[in-house]
């Protein structure tokens, strides 16, 4: 139930974003400030920014394309990485429990790579991003219908956290 609530909350945030775009993550002054501090990370920003605090990207069944509604979040993290060359993040892919453990591991990996690809085009360096997969190993083994969507995701985490 917690997961469901969280998803609803994330969606509400996203809906909010589309009407009032938050550009501060992309502001050039911020980028310069981040770079000027020579590798320092603005942890406060990671913890407070309305896009950077969103750490999960959800996918459709057996699909790996990043859906348009998650591009703002993914791009915000890419911009953060571009602004903070010392930042290192892990993209951890997941799949729901249905089907083979190994194929789900590969599918989770493909999802994490497709998030990385979007980040790469938005300026994040490949060396800052590690993609791994947990497949279905952390998935709800009894999910039904739409509930299983919670397990089809990529989680974004930073090394410093």
């Amino acid at each position, binding site marked *: 139930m917690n997961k469901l609530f969280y998803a609803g909350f994330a969606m509400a945030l996203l809906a909010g974003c589309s009407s009032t775009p938050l550009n501060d993550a992309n502001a050039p002054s911020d980028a310069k400030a981040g770079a000027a501090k020579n590798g320092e990370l603005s942890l406060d920003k990671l913890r407070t920014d309305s896009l950077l605090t969103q750490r999960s990207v959800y996918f459709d069944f057996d699909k790996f394309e990043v859906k348009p509604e998650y591009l703002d979040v993914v791009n915000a993290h890419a911009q953060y990485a571009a602004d903070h060359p010392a930042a290192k993040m892990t993209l951890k892919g997941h799949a729901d429990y249905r089907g*083979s453990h190994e*194929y789900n591991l590969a599918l989770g990996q493909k999802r994490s790579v497709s998030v990385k690809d979007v980040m790469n085009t938005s300026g994040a360096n490949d060396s800052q991003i590690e993609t791994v997969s947990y497949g279905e190993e952390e998935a709800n083994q009894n999910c039904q219908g739409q509930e299983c969507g919670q397990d089809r995701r990529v989680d974004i985490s930073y090394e410093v956290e």
Partner: protein
Amino acid sequence: MKFLSKTLLLILFLFQTAQAIEVIDILGGKANELAVAVIPFSGDDTDNEKNQIHNIIKSDLSRSGFFRIIKTEGVKSLPANSDQVDYTFWSGLKTELLVIGRVEKNEQQIKVTYDLVDVFKEKLIISTEYMGTLKQARQIGHQISNVIYEKITGTPGVFHTKIGYVQKVNNKKFHLNVADMDGFNAKSVVISNEPIISTRWSPDGEKIAYVSFEKKKPVIFVQNLKTGDRKLVANFKGNNSSPAWSPDSKKLAIVLTYNAFSQIYIMDVNGGDVQRLMRSRSIDTEPVWAPDGKSIFFVSDRGGGPQIYSIDLATEQVRRVTFEGKYNVSPRLSPDGKLLTFITNDNGSYKVAVQNLMSNQVMRLTKGKNDEAPVFSPNGHMVLYTSKESEKETALKTVSLNGFKQQLIDTGPLSNQEATWSPIDF
């Protein structure tokens, strides 16, 4: 023997009549089973019914799909040896075979004598005696099953073999267990706080390769069953998974990702000489060696959804193998290389299927709906798989190719999955 020839004929008929690809669902066919009555062995005073010799034999023969067990409860005078058989009575029950036995025990030793009787011919087929320690009682039962099985089918039985599988304990501990093929005498060879998947018994019987998440990502270990040593053989950047033994047990096909999609590599069993098998812009995973060592079957989503392909190791030519359905994963080959088993998604239900690689005809062996990880028995007559009913823990089952008999493997109430089967001469 006439029963057997009828059975084989039916299998050949099923596999060879279809020229076009055709999928057949057959569940619980009963026509080809041989009716056998296994009489409780006289002198078998074992308290636990499951450990009584006649119940071990009944469970084995029933599992094989070649036998239908005739109930003997309520029969007044059960024979204790072949001289005492009332043939008219047993033919009246449509019993074709009788197994009759005697147990003698002292404090350390058990002696088991049994007779296999052909009721229609009124003839003793086999009479044999086994001696062993008391702890070997189950093994003696399995050996009797093997002899009967081979006599009737012409193929060696696998009732003495072992299986490996992953047991989840309260979702906190993950045990790699080895047990008798019916689930008895389980022992944990690895215990981990992180998930274990993809157990693969080496063809030489000595090792089990598996994937562990104990490095906070999937890496490949090889557990030596003789020495108890375990070795981390693949811990490259990204994911390391899906180990598959070469037929000579000297190499492993593995799947690595680095920072990209899953791709297949081949390396020495100790982790050296890593060579990329092929390059694709898609998922390539779940490699499995053909028994002749000449090709590797694998799963790829290069055509959209996951399908099974094979690559010829000499020519590097890739061929698509499965065409029915949009989701076919987890390929494993029969020991003779003629049959492929895999999981197919049939309208949202994941079922065990078998494809004849000559005719390409597909048969679905189970009803689903969440079956996983099929693997052939070492004689190719059964498929071991993971079955999950909703809200229940995963359980291991076998399904026989003859008669499609599904039977639980008694590994207890915990979640059991990701099984592998030892070689036949283990």
